[in-house]
């Protein structure tokens, strides 16, 4: 395999650290609080999954990390990438990071690839933009990347347009594109949601394998509990723009503490017991333009009591680092 500059190095400091990230969309009459204080840190080679329903603020968080939100979005908090504060960097500096040290793959690869450029051109373009090499070298590198993501007959696929490939192949190409400049952090926005189940697992396995080879950190966003269980080291459950629970995959899957997490697990085929009826979480997520005081999940929660609807919800952190944000947690979690 040709050298495509993807050699891994390992350190123990976090490559990505996010502190109290908030995103508000303010326009004339509306004020939508999409993300309300998300914090996490990721080391090399680690995968964090943000799990949540549609509209819980998962994708907005990723876009905020990339600096891709529209101008009227107000982003606050701190984001460190490789020890460097990146929130509020000038556009030109940010453009150098995007696709370089931090890159992203998307839910719908057909929509995320430009239909009138070949796969090869689109990958090479990124390499030229970031590393200033000539087109021939960049194409050579693109070929190596397609081999790396296990696309069959890569020479031919290099000259293909997105519409000439299958869904799984396109997502592989998208991954190749994202890895083109050896990012230290890969943001994955529901990358398997649009794929067939059989292709889903192939893409997940590929991501895991590439991560082991290259040592990047992955922030994986999904609403699919099964996918989260497959890919993650740690899981953070997001509800109404807040993490309501986080912990290792094992902790979350085996001993969910938050009623919302419990509801999510019980409402999936993976989590429910054989023979029992699938459960649903009653109600709908709250309107982010007018969040209730106290716990945002309280209106849908079966354990709601008065304390849930007033004041701040206590955050309990266990010695292993697992976190849960729930009034009841003081009783259920051994401190």
């Amino acid at each position: 395999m040709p050298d495509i500059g993807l050699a891994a190095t390992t350190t123990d400091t976090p490559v990505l650290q996010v502190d109290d990230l908030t995103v508000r969309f303010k326009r004339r009459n509306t004020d939508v609080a999409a993300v309300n204080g998300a914090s996490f840190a990721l080391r090399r080679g680690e995968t964090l999954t943000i799990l949540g329903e549609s509209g819980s603020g998962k994708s907005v968080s990723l876009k905020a990390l990339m600096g891709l939100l529209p101008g009227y979005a107000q982003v606050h908090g701190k984001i460190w990438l490789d020890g460097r504060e990146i929130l509020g960097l000038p556009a030109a500096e940010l453009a150098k990071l995007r696709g370089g040290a931090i890159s992203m793959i998307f839910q719908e690869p057909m929509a995320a690839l430009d239909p009138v450029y070949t796969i090869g051109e689109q990958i090479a373009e990124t390499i030229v933009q970031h590393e200033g090499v000539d087109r021939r070298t960049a194409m050579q590198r693109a070929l190596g990347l397609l081999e790396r993501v296990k696309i069959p007959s890569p020479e031919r696929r290099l000259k293909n347009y997105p519409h000439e490939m299958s869904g799984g192949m396109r997502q592989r190409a998208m991954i190749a594109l994202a890895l083109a400049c050896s990012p230290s952090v890969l943001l994955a926005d529901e990358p398997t949601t649009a794929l067939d189940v059989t292709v889903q697992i192939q893409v997940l396995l590929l991501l895991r394998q590439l991560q082991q080879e290259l040592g990047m950190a992955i922030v994986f966003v999904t609403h699919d509990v099964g996918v989260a269980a497959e890919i993650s080291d740690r899981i953070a459950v997001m509800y109404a723009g807040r993490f309501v629970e986080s912990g290792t995959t094992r902790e979350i899957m085996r001993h969910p503490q938050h009623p919302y997490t419990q509801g999510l697990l019980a409402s999936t085929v993976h989590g429910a017991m054989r023979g029992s009826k699938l459960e649903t979480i009653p109600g709908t997520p709250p309107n982010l333009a007018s969040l209730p005081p106290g716990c945002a999940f309280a209106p849908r929660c079966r354990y709601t009591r008065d304390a849930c609807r007033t004041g701040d919800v206590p955050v309990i952190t266990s010695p292993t680092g697992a976190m849960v944000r729930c009034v009841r947690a003081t009783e259920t979690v051994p401190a």
Partner: protein
Amino acid sequence: MLVFALRRLLQAIPILLGVSLVVFGLVHLAPGNPIDMLMPPEASPEIVAQMKAAYGFDKPLYVQYLLWLMRALHGDFGLSVFNATPVWGQLVTALENTFILAILGAALGFALGIVTGLIAALYHGRWPDKLASAIATAGVSLPHYWCAIVLVLACAVLHDWLPAQGMGDDSLPIWQRLDFLVLPVVTLSLIPMGVIGRLVRATVLDILGQDFVGALSAKGLTRWPVLRHIIKNAAPPVLALMGLQFGYLLGGSILVETVFNWPGSGNLLNLAIFRRDIPVLQATILVLATFFVLLNLLVDIAQAAIDPRIRR
């Protein structure tokens, strides 16, 4: 790609044959016989018959059509019924004159349309958008003969900036008569500018709303490379409209050519209709229609070269 181009070229042949049939048929459907127009009412039937035979109007229509088509393929469109000069010569002169206007008018109109459309889309909802959209709407809605008259009034009558009409002295080379071009070219550029401007705005807005534009920023592209992607994506529909607009301009505008007294193809058509000059009429329409078909063929091929999804 080559296969696609050849296939489209072959498809153009039946279209052109159909066009020739329609051109020939329509002219003969229209009332009025050219010979009756030419002859004094008291002319003897023998002389009328003789004239008809001389111009071939006595033969059955399908024979007339085949003869006309065979000659036309060799560039021989016969003689004008009105002044007995070869049609081809008149046609070439008129087309040259119109072509100068059309190409300059199209270049100016397309350039302005693309720029205003892009600005409008990139500043969507803000004042540059409103200004550009107002200009485009004005360009499409104002009758261009009216604009022509206003321009003449402003630039030639009230001030002595530019000549009001004509092409200038024939003995001078064209580059010394450029000032005669300004007013007609500006007038003709208004509609293409408006039409293209509006389409560019709508197309670019549509593209800006697609996910891949965000993905381009996500891979670190800066403003200009992103704009390059947007332009390439917007090109096919805009090219299609440009082909049509340039085709219309080549047909010459009877009104604008009349206001500026410009001896182009619009003028020629106008005269031919009034004189019942069937050979001139047929030749002009056939040649213009052929241009139109070939132009759109080129556009099709260009579109397919840009967007591979069209090649099928």
